[in-house]
């Protein structure tokens, strides 16, 4: 079976949105996304290993994932802000540094919508820049791509 790639776009300068279709009902994706015993199976960047997950699934409840990656312990923490099983979840997101100090919080929103025989998952990451939230940049994706290309060229040079 061919791997289905994520579709990525930038709805606003401080936002990144990923979209992907899964061959399963929304309820299954919801469980995989929120149950610690399931989260350990998939969470993390390339090479992530030895995951430990805790999740208190209620509004205001905390969750956390520890894992090994990039040659060290990585820890991410969050708090559930909205839970609408099995359709929508909003949570904060922050990395802990080596001393356990929480970095600045971003937010993500998970949306699960039935589509065909499966579910469309849309994940939106938002940077904590409140003054930007009202401004929806037109043509942002194109600009971001050309700027990313420019940085890559400069790195190569």
């Amino acid at each position: 079976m061919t791997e289905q790639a994520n579709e990525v776009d930038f709805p606003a300068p401080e936002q990144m949105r990923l979209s992907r279709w899964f061959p399963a009902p929304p309820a299954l994706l919801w469980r995989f996304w929120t149950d610690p015993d399931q989260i350990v199976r998939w969470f993390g960047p390339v090479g992530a290993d030895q995951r430990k997950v805790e999740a208190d699934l209620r509004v205001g409840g905390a969750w956390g994932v520890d894992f090994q990656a990039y040659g060290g312990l990585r820890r991410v923490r969050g708090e559930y802000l909205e839970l609408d099983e099995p359709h929508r979840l909003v949570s904060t997101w922050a990395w802990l540094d080596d001393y356990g100090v929480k970095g600045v919080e971003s937010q993500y929103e998970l949306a699960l919508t039935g589509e065909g025989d499966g579910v469309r998952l849309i994940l939106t990451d938002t940077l904590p820049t409140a003054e930007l939230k009202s401004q929806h940049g037109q043509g942002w994706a194109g600009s971001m791509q050309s700027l990313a290309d420019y940085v890559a060229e400069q790195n190569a040079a």
Partner: protein
Amino acid sequence: MEYALDNLSQTFSALADPTRRAILQQLTQGGASFTDLARPHQISRPAVVKHIKALEKSGLVERTGSATRPVYQLSAAALREPVDWLSNYQQFWDSSLDRLDDYVREVTEQKGGKA
């Protein structure tokens, strides 16, 4: 995976405006004079000056050349931070969702007997 988000949010503020993003895109083609930068925009010269100053302040654009004939250039170093933030998050989720997809298929194929 940790970033100086204060700097980063300043950079994103500079990037939030469509005219400023257009100016940055012009500069990906190389250094340009004020006249070159102002030409494609349907706004007053003082407005263009304001945008260029905002970009200079954010560090995204650097001024070289003489005081009377300045040349504006993109700073790849200042751009790297927002580009890295986005690409790191993208990489994180690409990898997570790939694994999630494998797991979903493993479970549904066992249960549903679709294979």
